[in-house]
């Protein structure tokens, strides 16, 4: 076996001044042409590890131990000049958000050329220009002068990320760090960028570290996967082993939280939150949330032990868990039967505008009582505009909107109190939908004050009951939103909607700002509430896999039109519209990736 191109041994990064570790005991190796997926939820330290491979940390952090060997040479000992010579040339970096990582004031040509110039790539200006064009062609971008003269904001998101890739591959690096490079891109664009990454890495024999929170993406791309939790690698092994029969409880739970298009799995979240730097107690960091935990788990952090061929696990019970074999997924509970006697909400011939531009064209849609209708589309498809028209937040539209057959005014303020009460909207980001200056009790009681005539004691009782309904401890009442985790905040937002005793919930991408394990728990809660409270649900999402679990009907949107409607199983199994077909094909799926690899 040839020696790995990149080897990381015992890497430790600390919070500057305090000495609390952000990540510690990080060891892995990547061979030429190999892609290692580094997965973890937000705050796990995966990006910190990625940047450390270039000898870099963000402000407030410092690398304090371990080695990063590139072709046998430890780069952490290099002088600043030595590091500069390494960065962009031997080890290069593809950032998460290309829109903010490209300098807005410089032309594309300048930004590409300077990498080559700095590292004296090629003998002459002409040679560098030729290399630049070659690179642009490799990442499937135009290479004419017109394109090179552009500024970053004149490119699409996908093009910007391709420029990032061209820059990273320009000097023929040995190692490349990709830090969630497709987050925020549409699935179609994402699929194209991913295939470019895969081709370039294998063609040039580059060792790649692909940092991501999205297990499905990693499954389609990586040869091996390392899972991070609270600043440690908890499991590292071949992709197929890890996703089929993981030996660490955290990995197993993570896989179970992923929605799949193939069947109606129940999504199971992981309760609790990961400990942050400075709050990590002795023992396995996952133990407090682990269903397999025994007393030994709370005494000291287990070492990374070998469990199989190239498979390492940080768990005292890994042998037993490994022996459980392939994890079977539990089917989701049956969806409630919709009430076909009346129509809860109906939209007919709706056109909507933002200023001069028309965003929605002739939309027809209806939701029955107790029915969950999913509205699926990529960003810019108009799905959120439609949801906002229904919720009374977007008034610039023409067409019919009715609630229980009675016309609904445009704009919430023009509607009757009862209409506003019956129709509740839950926003995408719980970080912005809760007023940071109000306590949870004030937030949840807001609709109570507007819609019901309650005294102080009754209000308090309703708030407590509603919080319990969304599985939040009533002790949260006196908290402010920033004291809660993302998942807890989204529960508060749901509680605020439920307090109004609605008949229709409009859920606008309510899990897209959350980690996958939290997403699972929220979806589970929404499905349960729908069953028990007999709610109608309009579930807006870009995630096709999610709708399988929760929705009965689906409407697919593209460029302001509904292109396909039908029962969820039918649409997913045999899509009729060309756009739906392409969308399904481009959606990364762990199961498909595993099936294809087997």
């Amino acid at each position: 076996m040839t020696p790995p191109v990149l080897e990381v041994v015992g890497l430790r990064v600390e919070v500057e001044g305090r000495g609390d570790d952000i990540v510690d005991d990080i060891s892995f190796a990547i061979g030429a042409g190999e892609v290692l997926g580094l997965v973890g939820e937000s705050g796990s330290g995966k990006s910190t590890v990625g940047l450390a491979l270039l000898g870099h940390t963000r402000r407030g952090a410092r690398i304090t131990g371990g080695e990063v060997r590139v072709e046998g040479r430890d780069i952490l000992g290099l002088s600043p000049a030595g590091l500069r010579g390494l960065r962009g040339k031997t080890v290069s970096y593809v950032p998460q958000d290309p829109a903010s990582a490209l300098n807005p004031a410089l032309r594309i040509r300048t930004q590409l050329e300077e990498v080559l110039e700095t590292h004296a790539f090629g003998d002459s200006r002409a040679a560098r220009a030729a290399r630049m064009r070659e690179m642009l062609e490799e990442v499937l971008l135009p290479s004419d002068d017109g394109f090179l003269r552009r500024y970053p904001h004149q490119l699409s998101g996908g093009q910007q990320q391709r420029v990032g890739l061209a820059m990273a591959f320009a000097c023929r690096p040995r190692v490349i760090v990709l830090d969630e490079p497709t987050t925020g891109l549409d699935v179609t664009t994402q699929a194209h960028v991913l295939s470019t990454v895969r081709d370039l890495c294998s063609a040039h024999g580059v060792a790649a570290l692909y940092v991501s929170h999205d297990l499905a993406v990693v499954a389609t791309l990586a040869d091996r996967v390392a899972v991070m939790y609270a600043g440690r690698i908890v499991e590292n092994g071949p992709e197929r082993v890890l996703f089929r029969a993981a030996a660490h409880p955290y990995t197993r739970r993570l896989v179970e939280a992923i929605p799949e298009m193939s069947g109606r799995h129940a999504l199971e979240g992981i309760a609790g939150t990961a400990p942050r730097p400075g709050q990590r107690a002795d023992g396995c960091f996952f133990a407090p949330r682990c269903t397999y935990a025994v007393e030994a788990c709370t005494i000291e952090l287990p070492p990374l032990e070998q469990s199989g061929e190239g498979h390492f696990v940080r768990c005292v019970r890994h042998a037993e868990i490994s022996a459980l074999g392939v994890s079977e997924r539990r089917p989701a509970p049956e969806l409630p039967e919709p009430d076909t006697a009346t129509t809860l909400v109906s939209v007919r011939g709706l056109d909507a505008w933002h200023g001069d531009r028309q965003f929605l064209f002739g939309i027809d849609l209806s939701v029955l009582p107790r029915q969950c209708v999913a509205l699926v589309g990529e960003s810019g498809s108009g799905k959120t505009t439609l949801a906002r028209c229904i919720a009374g937040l977007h008034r610039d539209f023409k067409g019919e909107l009715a609630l229980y057959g009675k016309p609904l005014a445009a704009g919430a303020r023009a509607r009757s109190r009862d209409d506003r009460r019956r129709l509740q909207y839950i926003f995408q980001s719980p970080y912005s939908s809760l007023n940071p200056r109000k306590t949870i009790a004030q937030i949840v009681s807001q609709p109570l004050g507007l819609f019901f005539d309650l005294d102080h004691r009754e209000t308090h009782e309703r708030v407590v009951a509603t919080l319990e309904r969304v599985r939040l401890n009533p002790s949260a009442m006196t908290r402010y939103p920033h004291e809660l985790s993302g998942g807890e905040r989204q529960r508060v937002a749901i509680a605020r909607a439920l307090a109004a005793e609605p008949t229709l919930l409009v859920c606008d991408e309510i899990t897209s700002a959350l980690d996958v394990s939290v997403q699972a728990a929220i979806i589970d809660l929404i499905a349960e509430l729908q069953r028990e409270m007999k709610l109608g649900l309009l579930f807006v999402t870009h995630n096709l896999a999610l709708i399988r679990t929760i929705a009965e009907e689906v409407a697919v949107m593209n460029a302001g039109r509904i292109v396909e409607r039908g029962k969820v199983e039918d649409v997913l199994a045999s899509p009729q519209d060309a756009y739906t077909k392409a969308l399904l094909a481009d959606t990364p799926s762990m199961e498909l990736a595993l099936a294809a690899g087997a």
Partner: protein
Amino acid sequence: MSTVAAGFERARGILPRPRGVWGFVLRRVLLGLLTLFLVSIVVFAATQTLPGDAARAFLGRNATPESLATLRKQLHLNEPVVSQYLHWLGGIFRGDLGNSLTGSQQPVTSVIGARIENSGVLMLIAAVISVPLSIALGAIAARRRDGVFDHTTSIVLLALAALPEFVTAILLVVLLGTSLFHFLPPVSLIPPGGHPWNYPKELVLPVIALVFAVTPYIARIMRASMIEVLESDYVEMARLKGLREQTVLWRHALPNGIAPAIQVIALNLAYLAGGIVVVEFVFAYPGIGSAFVGAVHNRDLPTVQALGILIAAAYVFLNVAADVATILVSPRLRTSLK
């Protein structure tokens, strides 16, 4: 940046929309003229229609019915307010600002004409010193954030920003003009008809006072904007590309850091126009500032109106220039106009 964008949005709402950069410049200039027109109304309203009678105010206790009547006629106070205003406005366009009420009753234009040069020289020197100085101070402080230089400048600039100009000016006189260094004159004696650049010593203290008044603001906004830029993803990316620190700073950071500061620079240069009122008074410097104070003391309305509109015009002009300059240095805003 946001104020430009907002200004742009507003400009677009009110006025017709020729496209492109020149369209923007045109709109911005028209908007500036509109502001000036409104400003002229404010000046006129403040001097002519506030409670109190301009003629009586000027003549004070010595007023006789005859002299009051004469002055009222001279100031057109007997006509309806609107026609008074139009008459005055028409005068501005003809270069006729009326006659001063004091002394030999010269035309206002000749009273202030010579003084504009004196004040202009003072402001220009102050601007030429303070703009590069404050940009450098702000950029260095940002680069060495939380270091000794940063902390020292932050406290000194904070104190300087807090002090009213006349306090700074008097402290300068106390320190440099009296006991310690006798060579700097505490009073600027420039004879009528003399050019200020022939009296460099007379300029030193007023210029320092103005530089102290303006530098802190620009330096602080420059520091804040540079810190934001230095923390940006694209500067991190530039470092991760292996670029030399010099290139990172000069090519990637500084151009983006200066753009938001341009607005503040213009605002503060315009602020110089206000600052000279007090500073010139302290040093008895023969510019439009001290003339303004004198005119207010004497209730010399035509002169007050003329100087008020002149200073406001300088202010508006600089703001328009700043908006245009910001557009020109920001490719993103520039192309959004196409």
